[in-house]
């Protein structure tokens, strides 16, 4: 111990991100991450989690390969067909969407290392910045985006082998742009969601965006009507539609070349001017890097997002209860009611599917162009709203943190706690599903009474089925959730995979029942069939609740270790 209080002759400090000190730190981080993976296999849950990650990796890779193959084939086609080279820009748009939209959608389910914990060590800002970008390379959107880029590269090279070098350069620059942009967007979103004022602004923008999407379709189709159930009328309508779309398309055509995907497309297809769009892409990278650096610089200097008090000043004497009654069910519901509005990620998770429902229902309506949209469009839109509740339902104890110990210490059975949470989440889902139904109806047209009854019966089946499976997963595969952040969550791949599986099965059951009844021209039969399934699901849910305490006690150590102990 004689060496204490003697600072060692460590390598001289250079601010470079690749200096000897920085390289040692990267090696230490790599070793630490590796040891964490190895140690995670010590417990059954850890091994299962690792296996689930492997399965998820395979699934995502297959998805990526599918996407990559499609994009590669499209790139090949656009290169060999004269006059279609500009289609490449659309392919770059597809890559852009994969890379930028998926990170927010998947943020809650992926384990992300919080690099701000490294700030107590002598890590230079450049290393901190580099690490932030590098950690962006090891997530699903980067995997999919990378495969997509490889697909385009393969397609282009097969069509024009002499373009290989240029394609590598353009795609590499485009990939760097997407990585930096995705990190920048997530960093700023976390910042905005941490402060009340900016959170309210973001909420307002989100609301305006939803309303805009709602109004966009009527604006685009002011003179088009869809009451013609025959093909001739549909064709006429289609012509009218494209006529009305022409000015919009012309505007988009003028703007598109200045966007990053447009620049990447131009850089690839127009060798004579390739330097200019590549330079512009470089400028985009610099801008995104600058904005990311601006955010990370604040964090590096010691800004703590979680330390920012977000609550409004309230009257300390205000002890008004939201729900009357002093029973534990009322207490848990009240707690949830107070916590959910304070968690922007949860509100976004609930609200985002509504935007998607608007878009999907509009697309379905436009695709039908005068014909009746397909039968299942309305119920599918309603059940899609359940996606926003995935984390809330399948990890309903995740936000408790150290409070989980209080739940075990209190004389209230876990069964009661879960019942209260289920009632709360169920009620919230019914509200969101009603909104999704209203949105879908506004785009797809009023559903008939039978379709409405079928949808309601499906909801009655899906909800308890989800709650039953959710309670089991919450007790057996919990993971800690920070309700104040979108990125840098701990996540659980195993839980995400199983919840996805449950959702697919529940949705599949509904589709099979619907399709069979439609096939045999007995649509009415879908309602009692789904009600029978609903009855079974309710019984399963009640059985899970009845056994919740036994399950909770059996997994008590794991629950406390995961939610309350050192991360």
């Amino acid at each position, binding site marked *: 111990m004689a060496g*204490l209080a003697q*600072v*060692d002759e*460590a390598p001289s400090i250079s601010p470079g991100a690749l200096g000897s000190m920085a390289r040692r730190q990267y090696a230490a*981080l790599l070793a*630490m991450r590796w040891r964490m993976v190895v*140690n995670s296999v010590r417990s059954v849950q850890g091994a299962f989690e690792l296996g689930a990650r492997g399965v998820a990796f395979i699934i995502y890779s297959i998805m990526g390969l599918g996407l990559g193959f499609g994009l590669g084939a499209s790139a090949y086609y656009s290169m060999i067909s004269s006059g279609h080279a500009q289609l490449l820009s659309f392919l770059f748009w597809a890559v852009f969407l994969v890379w930028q939209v998926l990170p927010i959608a998947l943020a809650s389910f992926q384990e992300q290392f919080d690099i701000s914990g490294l700030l107590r060590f002598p890590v230079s800002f450049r290393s901190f910045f580099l690490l932030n970008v590098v950690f962006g390379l090891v997530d699903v959107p980067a995997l999919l985006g990378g495969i997509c880029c490889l697909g385009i590269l393969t397609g282009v090279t097969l069509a024009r082998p002499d373009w290989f070098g240029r394609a590598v350069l353009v795609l590499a620059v485009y990939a760097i742009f997407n990585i930096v942009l995705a990190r920048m967007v997530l960093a700023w979103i976390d910042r905005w969601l941490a402060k009340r004022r900016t959170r309210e602004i973001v909420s307002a923008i989100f609301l305006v965006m939803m309303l805009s999407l709602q109004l966009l379709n009527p604006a685009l189709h002011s003179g088009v009507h869809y009451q013609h159930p025959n093909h001739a009328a549909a064709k006429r309508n289609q012509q009218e539609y494209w006529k009305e779309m022409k000015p919009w398309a012309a505007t988009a055509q003028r703007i598109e070349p200045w966007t990053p995907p447009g620049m990447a497309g131009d850089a690839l297809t127009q060798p004579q001017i390739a330097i200019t769009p590549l330079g512009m892409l470089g400028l985009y990278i610099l801008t995104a890097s600058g904005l990311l650096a601006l955010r990370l610089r604040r964090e590096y200097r010691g*800004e703590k997002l979680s330390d920012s008090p977000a609550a409004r000043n309230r009257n300390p004497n205000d002890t008004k209860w939201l729900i009357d009654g002093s029973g534990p069910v009322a207490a848990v519901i009240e707690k949830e009611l107070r916590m959910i509005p304070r968690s922007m990620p949860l509100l976004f998770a609930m609200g985002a599917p509504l935007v998607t429902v608007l878009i999907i229902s509009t697309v379905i309506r436009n695709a039908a162009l005068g014909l009746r949209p397909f039968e299942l469009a309305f119920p599918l839109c309603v059940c899609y709203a359940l996606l926003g509740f995935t984390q809330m339902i399948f990890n309903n104890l995740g936000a408790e943190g150290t409070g989980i110990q209080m739940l075990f210490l209190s004389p209230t059975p876990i069964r009661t706690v879960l019942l209260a949470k289920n009632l709360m989440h169920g009620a919230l889902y019914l509200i969101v599903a009603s909104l999704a139904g209203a949105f879908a109806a506004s785009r797809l047209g009023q559903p008939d009474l039978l379709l409405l009854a079928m949808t309601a019966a499906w909801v009655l089946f899906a909800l308890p089925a989800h709650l039953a499976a959710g309670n089991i997963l919450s007790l057996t595969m919990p993971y800690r959730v920070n309700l104040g952040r979108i990125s840098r969550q701990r996540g659980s791949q195993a839980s995400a995979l199983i919840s996805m599986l449950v959702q697919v099965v529940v949705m599949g059951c509904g589709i099979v029942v619907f399709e069979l009844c439609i096939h045999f021209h007995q649509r009415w039969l879908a309602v009692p069939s789904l009600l029978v399934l609903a009855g079974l699901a309710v019984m399963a849910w009640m059985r899970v609740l009845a056994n919740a305490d036994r399950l909770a006690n059996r997994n008590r150590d794991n629950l406390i270790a995961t939610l309350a102990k050192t991360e």
Partner: protein
Amino acid sequence: METPAIKTQGLTRCFGALTAVQDVTLTVASGQFFGFLGPNGAGKSTTIKMLTGLLEPTSGTIEILGKPFGANALELKRQIGVVPEGMALLGRLTAPEYLRFVGRMYGLERETVNRRTEELLEFMQLANERRKLITDFSHGMQKKLALAAAVIHGPRVLFLDEPFEGVDAIAAGMLKTMLQGMINRGATIFLTTHVLEIVERLCSHVAIIHQGRLVANGSIEDLRAGVASTLPGTESEQRLTLEEIFLSIVGAGGQESPQELSWLA
């Protein structure tokens, strides 16, 4: 005059409308064992976070070992050690793995890291737990490990936020010996704790923060003399304990006693 180990001028930190630390100006001489006291929520941890570069001050300046923190953050971080409020351990590593990780993050040579890891594990009586994951450690064991990680690079200034909380008496005694040894070798220790006996026994100088403001600063003897002179009826030979000094300065004696909780059994 020797360069002070820690020097702050007008240090202030606001969280929205709340001012957690206000205009704190203090100087800690090199080689001093400095106690930083205050009631819960007084601003102790916020001050430590600012002094160690984990939290940006709203205003004011910080100098560590004679250098302003902002411009020399990287160099200074190599010379300070911290046991932060939440310990900041990585639960899914074992103790040797964690210590090796921390040592390498400070740029130590591999052999040095390995040697010190073993020495620290032995010293902290964690050598028999080398295969156990940190998440399975007791609170006291985690505290000892956090302290080991804070000193593995031989810091010249050590910041300790409640280091003895949950540590057993035997280990606490050893830790005190280790800290005293560091002081003897010229290190500076900045300690916050609610255990005033420890401060009284170890620290030569004390500062007291209350509601974000520094309300006392000096040697324990100076504070004792100052408080004694303000208390009527205190005999000069009557030696005030640090607890009495603390309660007198933060004004607990002047506060109305809370209503008795008659419903308690």
